[in-house]
């Protein structure tokens, strides 16, 4: 027996379910953005629709640099979820002081190093249930 799964497996990336979906829309345009609180001006990472400092839920989008440095990484060979092939390089990339969790692409796993300069190369993943493209943050060597 198979079950029909009606829910969007990633509702927090959907225009329909979150006001933060624009992060992904802009990522699809090759831009890494985050939220700046309209109440107190604090820049959040990752994007947040509510500011715990001033309790405002108003925000604007702020561009982040398209380059960063590898702060930590692993090469995962097995134990990946269905639909993912190993080896896959996961990294925490330092972008203007923000720790951006992402995938490294177009890199030989044995050549990855802490401190390495990388640039944003967003990764297209499975479309949403309505057939619109979806993107995730990814970086490649400069």
């Amino acid at each position, binding site marked *: 027996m198979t079950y029909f799964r009606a829910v969007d497996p990633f509702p927090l990336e959907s225009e329909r379910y979150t006001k933060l979906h624009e992060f992904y829309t802009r990522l699809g345009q090759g831009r890494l953005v985050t939220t700046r609180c309209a109440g107190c001006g604090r820049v959040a990472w990752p994007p947040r629709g509510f500011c715990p400092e001033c309790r405002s839920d108003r925000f604007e989008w702020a561009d982040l640099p398209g380059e960063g440095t590898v702060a*930590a990484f692993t090469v995962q060979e097995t134990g990946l979820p269905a639909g993912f092939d190993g080896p896959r390089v996961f990294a925490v990339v330092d972008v203007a002081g923000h720790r951006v969790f992402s995938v490294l692409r177009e890199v030989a796993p044995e050549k990855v190093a802490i401190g390495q300069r990388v640039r944003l190369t967003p990764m297209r993943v499975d479309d949403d249930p309505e057939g619109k493209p979806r993107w995730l943050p990814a970086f490649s060597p400069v």
Partner: protein
Amino acid sequence: MRDVAIIGVGSTPFGKLERQGIVEMAVAACRDALAESRVPREKIQALYLGNFAGERLASQGSLAAIVVNRLGMSGIPATKTEGACASGGIAFRLGVLGIALGLYDFVLVGGVEKMSSAPTAEVTAALATAGDETAEMRTGLTFPGAFGIIMREHMARYGTTRAQIGLVSVKNHGLGAANPKAQFRKPVTLDEVVSSRLVADPIRLFDCPPISDGAAAAVLCPLEMARDFTAKPVRVLGTGHATGPATLWESADVTTMPATVRASREAYAAAKIAPADVDVVELHDCFTIAEIIATEDLGLFPKGKGGAAVEEGWTALGGKVAVNPSGGLISKGHPVGATGVAQIYELVRQLRDEAANQVRGAEIALAHNLGGTGVVSTVTVLGRA
């Protein structure tokens, strides 16, 4: 606040338990704990049951209510607690608080998980929901990957060696071999650990726990009533429960888990003890590196010295502080919702001098349960009554 005692414990074996569903396992562990406590079922006033993924992996919601129903105790309040792999630790603590605050005199606590019934990819996906949906796990990262990043960082920052980390697996598999409740009953060598299949560099297969089924339970009452039921009550000296970052990118330093630090300090303060007073520990070795980090965060060893402590034999049975004499998650198994209560089961047996790998003369015991990459932690300090 009233002093609280544990007067009975029960546990299924851990492993791939065929012909046992999620409700049946929980009922079996509860039945054994109730029988040992000699508390008649009509005296039990509440159940707290830890479970993480019962809806998804076993297609069963309303779990706590269904378990009391099957135990013939329908009517009492029954609550399922969820905090990823710390679900059981939270259930135990809520039970303790219910008695300490005078709400109840007799409480049943338990934890259960059924994992072997689902395909590995589904188990992986279910466990990954403990991460923040919008970030890490969406990329295909799973817990071995997250702890791979953490292990590499600990090695780089503190000079912790691959051999030191591998010795955690050697120690825990060696201890698990003597535990009749353990899933793996076979020792491994350091060579086998460091040459086992690469999972998420530098984490290898023998750095990881298995996929497990199992359940554990305990009966609690006020300390002043405990001797009416058992000659060997175990006293709850202190508990702590804290939260931390949900993701690696929120941590300035991934080699420490703030939730463990905070929960343990809360438990030590309540118990009026120092880390050096602890004789035996069951801690959350969801990976070998997690055991080293936990021994540091619990204050058993200075930050960065956890690897050397293993190498020196300080965490072995007969060392300064015995860590995971049950075999830990790595060898005993890790049915995630059951783990926190199973640690209590093991430590109660230690404090009654009944454990498979008995720590001789153990007076103070500590349990540490962790969810995700440190999003939640519970710590319990137990002593002889």
